[in-house]
């Protein structure tokens, strides 16, 4: 446990000045900021549509969730998996890392958990900023009715789903980035995978839920459908989420075997 804690600290220390770390913070601020600015600027038309408070929140948070879930999230996850490993590839530091008096599994697990942590931070900020900026909009434009509905449940469950649904992709990309030190291979495979995943999910291919890259799209779609029938019921642990978690567990274990053979040429 001490090895894991130390390795996690070191991961943070190494990456705190890199784009990978700041992306986790800047991405939600920029996207939520832009959407809120749009809602502030176009408040007249939106108020004219006369949405009930719940629908207003749905429209507002859906803007971020839709962009995030469909496109940015998979690429962000691919980028995180890449950066956490690339820091060692680029500097040729794998051998140094594994020559430290630390448990090898802990070093590997810390890298993985750190990538998970960055994704968690990013999504947490998305949920928190959506909530906070919504209330800020209410203060700036008193005609809005954001204050009349509490969206926390929807926000937390939707982002929790997105988080769990992305872990399958993360683990797969993590392996690819471990194997290859360059940017193009993991990125290329991730890009093709993501496009395929989105298409497979959208045409409703019956095996779509077996493709890790389809899972965030599928998970969010379930959220949307449920919103119409019963808006307060967004079960987090649906089938796609379990599939994603199972993929994550399998790839995580395979990754460890790759790492023990690695860095040692």
């Amino acid at each position, binding site marked *: 446990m*001490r090895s894991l804690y*130390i*390795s996690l*600290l*070191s991961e943070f*220390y*190494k990456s705190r*000045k*890199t784009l990978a770390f700041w992306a986790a913070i800047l991405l939600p601020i920029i996207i939520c900021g832009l959407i809120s600015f749009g809602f502030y600027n176009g408040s007249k038309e939106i108020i004219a549509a006369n949405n009930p408070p719940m629908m207003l929140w749905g429209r507002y948070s859906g803007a971020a969730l839709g962009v995030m879930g469909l496109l940015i999230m998979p690429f962000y996850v691919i980028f995180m998996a890449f950066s956490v490993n690339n*820091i060692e590839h*680029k*500097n*040729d*530091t794998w*051998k*140094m*890392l*594994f*020559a*430290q*008096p*630390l*448990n090898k599994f802990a070093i590997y697990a810390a890298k993985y958990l750190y990538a998970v942590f960055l994704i968690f931070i990013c999504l947490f900020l998305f949920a928190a900023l959506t909530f906070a900026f919504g209330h800020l909009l209410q203060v700036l434009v008193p005609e809005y009715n954001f204050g009349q509905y509490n969206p926390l449940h929807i926000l937390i469950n939707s982002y929790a789903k997105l988080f769990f649904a992305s872990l399958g992709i993360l683990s797969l990309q993590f392996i690819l980035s471990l194997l290859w030190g360059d940017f193009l291979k993991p990125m290329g495979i991730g890009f093709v995978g993501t496009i395929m995943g989105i298409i497979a999910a959208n045409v409703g291919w019956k095996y779509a839920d077996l493709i890790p890259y389809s899972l965030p799209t599928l998970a969010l779609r379930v959220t949307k459908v449920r919103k119409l029938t019963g808006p307060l019921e967004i079960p987090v642990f649906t089938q796609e989420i379990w599939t994603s978690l199972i993929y994550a567990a399998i790839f995580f274990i395979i990754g460890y075997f790759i790492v023990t053979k690695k*860095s*040692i040429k």
Partner: protein
Amino acid sequence: MGNYAIETVGLNFNFGNQVIVKDLSLQVPKGSIYGFLGPNGAGKTTTIKILLNLLKSPSDQVFIFGKEINSNRIATLKRIGALVEQPAIYGHLTGKENLINRCILLGIKKSKADEMLALVGLAEAANKKASKYSLGMKQRLGIAQALISDPELLLLDEPTNGLDPNGIIEVRNLMIELATKHEKTILVSSHLLAEIERTATHVGIINKGELLFQGTINELHLLSKPVLEIEVDQIENASALIAGAGFEIIAHTNNKITVAFSSAGKSGELNTMLIQNGITVSSLYQQRKDLENLFLDITKTN
């Protein structure tokens, strides 16, 4: 076994079908500076990686401070500091941050970082990004990283690579100081014998994965026997005469004959004999084969 910091017993290591290390039996005494010599590609770096357990050795072939490495990996690594190939440095961090990161990984005080920077002469460049460092500065930072945990055993893979003459002398003095004052054991690899000769107490020469020589530096010196080199005008006649008088000719070129040196008296006799037979001797001197040539000989015959 108790007296060795490193001991390998008939160590074999292959990459697929390619034999990298063959029946290697290193014995590095505690407190020694062990010069690990060999041409490029001889298996030096591979051996060092095995000693760090980066490459897995067969069981019961590698012992560090008497303990089998595979079953004592973490405990063993705690006692080793290493610099393997290029120093492992994060380019986007400053020199100091690189050392602090190492302190985090080793669970030691961060104040050690400044101490090490001063030791290797990087105090002024402490807050400069490591990617902006010169090759020599990177090498110093690598040495600082190896030393930061105050390890009993140091594995330095070509530590003077890329250093200027001043830097080379500094590293040399640092090694001697560490071994004599702080009782560290140092294994330092190099492909340059002259480099090792000045610091090492013990030498191991490896070529194509096999250990060709192992012993103290004095034992290595004994291997190089002195010779007598004679420059003459009539080389054929002179050779015949010298051979006829019972001297052993080691080599001859078109104006120089090399014979085994036995004593000053014998050299004088040989000179007199040549002159009396009408041969002009332009020079006659005793030569000790330098270690550089010895090293070349040892590694070439294999």
